[in-house]
């Protein structure tokens, strides 16, 4: 029975990863599509490949944070992890339906916290780990925004005397392939690791791995495959919001936004901090738009996105807590 439970939870975690790819990874290619550097189909394939390739470069620090730093490990059980996943997936699907680019990552953190609190009360929450995640919920879009603007300014300063505009345009269109690949690597590294963390948690909780175990290779490979497949079949509602509704981007802006977001994700993934790729790229796009003037940014859309962020953790927390209570009653 325990083994069947583990299989079900692992399958659900991979389904979450797939939905994450479907939901979040679409954002990672928004700028490439909106600047018409790649067709939607080619952009999706490009991003999916680099999502998968991320496992070759980054470690599993983020996975360990999710598995060990959000709630006390003793409280994690198959039921808690399952409820957390169902809550996070439900929240993702609701926001996907509404076309809102919220964070699957924060839905997952909210889900784990909600299910664990429903099982054993508020004392199981680990303040230090949640504080680390909370601080970077605020900082990651701000870092993305600042870097997006700085990179834009540096590019503008470096090429302001260059008059062969068409050639410059072509150069940045090609450059965007590299920046989009870098961002997809960062996305794969940070987001796939969250699923690895959940699978690691359930394997430890069920006694299949010791408490100090690292993420097994099969978990790493299956998580990257799931997110890559999700990206490959990703939806376009959110791409539209991220790529054209927040601000209109040129290839040079796309390069700046993706490079800024990629740098932020490389740092946070290496430091073991789970952040939202959506938050990061949104901040970077706003930063590029603000290089010209604040009115270049459609603040109404950006504000709607911020509200969706604010509601993500409490929303997923609540759904997961209810799901856990239902599981408890049924079992």
């Amino acid at each position: 029975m325990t083994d069947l439970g583990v299989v079900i939870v692992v399958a659900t975690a991979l389904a979450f990863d797939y939905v994450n790819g479907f939901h979040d990874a679409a954002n990672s290619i928004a700028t490439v599509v909106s600047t018409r550097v790649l067709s939607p189909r080619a952009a999706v394939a490009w991003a999916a490949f680099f999502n998968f390739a991320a496992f070759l470069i980054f470690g599993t620090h983020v996975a360990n944070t999710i598995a060990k730093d959000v709630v006390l490990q003793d409280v994690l059980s198959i039921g808690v992890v399952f409820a957390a996943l169902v809550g996070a997936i439900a929240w993702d699907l609701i926001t996907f339906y509404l076309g809102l680019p919220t964070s699957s990552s924060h839905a997952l953190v909210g889900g784990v916290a909600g299910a664990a609190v429903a099982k054993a009360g508020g004392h199981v929450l680990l303040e230090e780990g949640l504080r680390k995640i909370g601080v970077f919920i605020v900082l990651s879009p701000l870092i993305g925004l600042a870097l997006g603007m700085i990179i834009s300014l540096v590019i503008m300063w470096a090429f302001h005397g260059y008059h062969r505009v068409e050639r410059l345009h072509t150069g940045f269109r090609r450059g965007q392939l590299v920046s989009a690949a870098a961002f997809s690597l960062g996305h794969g590294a940070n987001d796939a690791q969250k699923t690895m963390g959940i699978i690691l948690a359930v394997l430890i909780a069920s006694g299949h791995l010791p408490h100090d175990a690292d993420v097994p290779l099969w978990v790493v490979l299956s998580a990257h495959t799931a997110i890559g497949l999700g990206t490959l079949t990703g939806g376009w509602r959110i791409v539209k919001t991220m790529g054209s509704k927040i601000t209109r981007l040129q290839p040079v802006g796309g390069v700046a936004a993706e490079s800024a977001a990629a740098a932020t994700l490389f740092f946070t993934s290496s430091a073991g901090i789970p952040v939202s790729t959506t938050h990061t790229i949104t901040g970077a796009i706003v930063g590029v738009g603000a290089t010209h003037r604040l009115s270049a940014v459609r603040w109404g859309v950006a504000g709607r996105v911020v509200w969706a962020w604010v509601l993500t953790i409490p929303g997923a927390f609540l759904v997961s807590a209810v799901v856990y209570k239902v599981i408890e009653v049924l079992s």
Partner: protein
Amino acid sequence: MREMFSDRRAIVFIVFAAVCVAMVPLADPEHRWVAWVTAIAYVVLAVLSALDHWSRSKS
């Protein structure tokens, strides 16, 4: 001086810098420098935005 601060970017960036500073005590000691560096970057961007606006309005 009034002209210099009428560029909303400068004001918004100062607010962002303040938010980053507010995150410093909440961040774990290992990552406090990130909040500081981001805050400093926003102060620099605020000054540059104000200067940009000032030079444009002067010309």
